[in-house]
């Protein structure tokens, strides 16, 4: 870079550019949060779903699974598992309940979490709620 482009010009681009884009981002965030209820299915946020999110976090399900495409890539996407399991919370509960303690020989295994009936209901409701978030048509198909 030549003499015409001085250090103070570079610094001004940094300060000016950063300030502009930080404020733009804050503005967009404000707007995004404002219109969120149109897509985020927050109307379905019952006490049970909220408990379900806690069960989800307390057992680190994200350490093997993705949820809406974020997380780990070791096990199936769960954002749409409610739909993949035929819109059935019972099927989800049944799957989680029936994991063998010592895993399945040779197969990637999911732990037996020994969840209470209340926790099972909650996690299933949470996964149902997740599947009804408007994700702009993602994932491309039911396999997640």
């Amino acid at each position: 870079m030549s003499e015409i482009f001085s250090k103070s010009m570079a610094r001004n681009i940094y300060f000016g550019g950063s300030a502009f884009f930080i404020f733009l981002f804050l503005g967009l965030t404000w707007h995004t949060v404002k219109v969120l209820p149109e897509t985020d299915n927050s109307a379905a946020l019952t006490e049970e779903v909220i408990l379900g999110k806690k069960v989800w976090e307390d057992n680190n399900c994200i350490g093997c699974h993705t949820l809406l495409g974020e997380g780990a890539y070791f096990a199936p996407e769960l954002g749409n598992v409610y739909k993949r399991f035929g819109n059935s919370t019972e099927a989800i509960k049944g799957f989680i309940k029936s994991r063998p303690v010592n895993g399945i020989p040779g197969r990637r295994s999911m732990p037996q979490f020994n969840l209470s009936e209340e926790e099972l209901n909650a996690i299933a409701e949470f996964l149902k709620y997740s599947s009804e978030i408007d994700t702009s048509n993602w994932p491309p198909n039911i396999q997640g």
Partner: protein
Amino acid sequence: MINTLKYQSQAVAKPYFIAAIGLFVGQVLFGLIMGLQYVWGDFLFPEIPFNVARMVHTNLLIVWLLFGFMGAAYYLVPEESQRELHSPKLAIALFWVFLAAGVLTIIGYLSVPYATLAQITGNEFLPTMGREFLEQPTITKIGIVIVALGLLYNLAMTILPGRKTVVNVVLMTGLIGLAVFFLFSFYNPDNLVKDKYFWWWVVHLWVEGVWELILGSILAYVLIKTTGIDREVVDKWLYVIIAMSFITGIIGTGHHYFWIGTAEYWQPLGSIFSALEPIPFFMMTLLAFGAVGKRKRDHPNKATVLWALGTGVMSFLGAGVWGFLHTLAPVNYFTHGTQITAAHGHMAFYGAYVMIVITIISYAMPFLRGTGNAANRRAQFTEMWSFWLMTISMVFITLFLTGAGILQVWLQRFDDGQPFMVVQDKIAAFYWLREAAGVVFLIGLIVYIISFFVKSKEPAEA
């Protein structure tokens, strides 16, 4: 032993660097465990389930990189400010606090079920756990904040009365940003979409925002020292680089807001701005090669120069090229949350942040160990071997994961697709190859550690 430090307090960086390397070894070992679990599903099950190994792997990565950044700051800030560190005692105390917090957290992950850990650390009072990369118990997070505040205080009290260079001010800004954005890890709303939206304020705004300031300033410092390039020139470049980081990277956050239930305007916004994010990385490549090409002196530490150039190339490849590959919304629609993401995550983290930390360690260690301005020739030769082993194996890890990812997308995401588990079986060969490359990576890391103990054969070296 001759002491070659300009400022005695720079010595506090040494334990930080040693801890960083030690934890790096742990990180890679757990990476290899997971790599094996990918193809041998019940390996170590139920003792170390995959999710536990993953937490250990990623959290160790973040912790050792933070050790590296802090060590870098304690090393270069006194020299840039031309005065001793405000409080070396505080720096050493914080070192032990951070190491204890880190080690205890890892022990916690490995010794009790995660739900038990959440319970005994009181997660219910301020639930922050169970989210990717932010799995640490809330008290660990509070510990991290305390360590960060102590660090910032110590550095500020050194820089403010001292010489202010672009390097130390940019580094300081980056570290402040790191601490500020980490505070969003304490915000965990019940609303999943909102949770995800602000989770990225920690993750994305770190690696594609404020960490780039840390990266740029360390790189600039090392280039000034090793090539004798004019500070005025470097300063100008550094300003433009970090300007581009923020101009592209802030709105670029939108590339994570395509499919999580946020407004659809993020698809064009996120695509366009994140597509420009490779620019600052490319400028770092140009800066590194420009500085070395026009160097005014031949620094005896050739290994450091190699690491610095490597950072320039690999960060551009990993973050820039592999990032661009899947950042446009129509592409990301198919690749989101697949092995493509993992491929990019590995090469970007390695090329940018692992390599810059090794660069500064490589530069600073000879001074910290009192052996002059460079390790002996044989030691450097060994270190350069480790550079090639680790870097090339990381390229292969990335290529194998990319291959796996392309097939995964093809088989699972097009038309009706096949079930996830079925597809994983079909692409297992790529995972075996990845694991093999990972073993070479580990060998490279061992060679790196050995390089610190290689003695010169010649009786006396210049």
